[in-house]
């Protein structure tokens, strides 16, 4: 079976001040259509770098993709023309940003930001959508993320909304163009525990209802247990263990994984 997203033997390095550091080593990950996959690892293990490489927003330089392939629908993102890649970005594959406080532009309204993204996604895909339909679609995704009073929210500036609301807007942003793959990089870690739990619930519901593939990136194994069926464990840029989530919890093979699991009670609180 070929997966929707298949990362094969990916090597990524960073060069800063003439010193080269290997950040991802021989990383391989499969995300089948409609599956919920988790990627865990401690801080600095390379999770965000992996996600940015997949999304094509890695700053190059200093970063460099040294080798490997990233297949999406069996086409290699790394070798396809930039134009085709742009067509996928934010549409077929999109990501949920982590920090609700800093990921929305403070000087534009929610509708302005979501509408602009939608307009340009439509343009890349050669779709026609008028002003009124765009407004309707933005309200629709705001409702999907269970926003009350979506019209008022759409006309608000980010600072007029709570952290939880902003995080839901970041999810709505990712849903705008009906993606097939959603990559979520520690969504809600900046929020309090209750709100974070609500966000995770919402994500899980959305993913099952819309049959999206979800790659959940986190260093919190409590989150992993609730949101995934299969788990990859990453340490210092390598995948050190992979198994169905239940197995990982029942019988972790690596010492590193056992340590992560042991840390769960601490981590299910407000993560750092």
């Amino acid at each position, binding site marked *: 079976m070929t997966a929707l997203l298949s990362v094969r033997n990916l090597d990524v390095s960073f060069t800063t001040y003439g010193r080269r550091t290997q950040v991802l080593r021989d990383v391989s990950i499969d995300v089948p259509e409609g599956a919920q996959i988790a990627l865990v690892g401690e801080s600095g293990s390379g999770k965000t770098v992996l996600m940015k490489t997949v999304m094509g927003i890695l700053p190059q330089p200093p970063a460099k993709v040294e080798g490997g392939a990233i297949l999406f629908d069996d086409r290699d993102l790394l070798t396809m023309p930039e134009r085709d890649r742009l067509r996928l970005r934010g549409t077929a594959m*999109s990501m949920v940003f982590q920090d609700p406080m800093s990921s929305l*532009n*403070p*000087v*534009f309204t929610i509708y302005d930001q979501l509408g602009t*993204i939608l307009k340009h*996604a439509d343009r890349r895909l050669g779709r026609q959508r008028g002003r009124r339909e765009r407004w309707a679609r933005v309200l629709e995704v705001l409702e999907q993320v269970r926003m009350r009073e979506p019209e008022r929210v759409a006309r608000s*500036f980010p*600072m007029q909304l709570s952290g939880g609301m902003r995080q839901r807007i970041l999810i709505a942003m990712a849903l705008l163009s009906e993606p097939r793959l959603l990559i979520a990089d520690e969504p809600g870690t900046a929020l309090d525990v209750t709100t974070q739990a609500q966000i995770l619930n919402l994500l899980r519901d959305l993913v099952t209802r819309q049959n999206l593939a979800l790659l959940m990136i986190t260093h919190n194994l409590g989150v992993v247990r609730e949101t995934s069926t299969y788990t990859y464990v990453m340490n210092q840029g390598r995948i050190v263990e992979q198994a169905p989530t239940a197995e990982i919890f029942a019988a972790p093979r690596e010492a590193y994984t056992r340590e992560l699991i042991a840390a769960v009670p601490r981590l299910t609180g407000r993560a750092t």
Partner: protein
Amino acid sequence: MEFLAFLLRRLGWSLLVLLGLSVVIFTIARVVPGDPARMALGPTASADQVASLQESLGLNDPMFQQYATFLHGLARGDLGRSLLTEQSVTADIAKTFPATLELVICTILLAFALGVPLGVAAARWKDRWPDNLVRALAIGSAVMPTFFLALLLQILAGYVLNVLPTTGRLPGGIDFDAGWTGLVLVDSLIAGRGDVFLEAVRHLFLPTIALAAATMGQIARITRASMIDVSRQDYIEAARAFGVPDRLRMFKYMLRPAFVPPLTITGLEFASLIGNAFVVELIFSWPGMASYGIRAIVQKDLNAIMGVVMVSGVFFVVVNLMIDLLVGVVDPRVRIRGSRA
């Protein structure tokens, strides 16, 4: 609604600042050494004459009463009589201020029109040649004294190349009475005098460049820093991840939030801009407030000094008020919450 509240708040502040300014001006004018009555009458006047002028100027009244009189006149736009010209100070200033206003407005517009794009270009091509060029320009214009640049331009463009006029607002041959606004550029357009307009532009050219250079350098520098700062924000990365095109990210998503620091710095720089305007006016024989103000200071013409400083102060406050409002338009955080934090 919230904008109206914001506007009223700012207006209130401006009034307070002006009131404070009137106190400061009044005090300074009283404490500087030298007797205005004696200076007005000259060394040959008798002590009696000086005493009676002091009496009629109210210089013997209690300070508080003098201030009240000053404030009362101020509220009616009456700045008293100049001891030198023997005209009402308000009328004197009304004659010269429009020329200064025109010069300063053109300067700010030019500084912005050049400074912001330069800053954006420097940020866009950071550490490449456009950036280096802009940084060199910014530093150069900051360290070059305005009077020096003014003289340099005058010599180069005026005498060596002989392409632009180096003195005055209009050539001697043109008789144009700027009756409506006092701004020749505006009035000549209203009057449909294209020839006057062109001449006015030619005359404005050198003084405006000389005066604008330092401010433009500052604006370019601040815009660059601000753009680079904003470009590192998560929301810019997010816009990129969602496929918002480069140019739109640059000119909308980045420039708008990055626009506030250059605006603010312009407001702060405005004080030194007025000071430099006096220098530039002298060098280019620009018929603005400068020569009137300087003569007033040298001769200790109290009412004229207070008038010139007060008008400069009002100018400063009005410009900053407008900038505050612009900042409010650009950044909703300021408008709604009163700060950017």
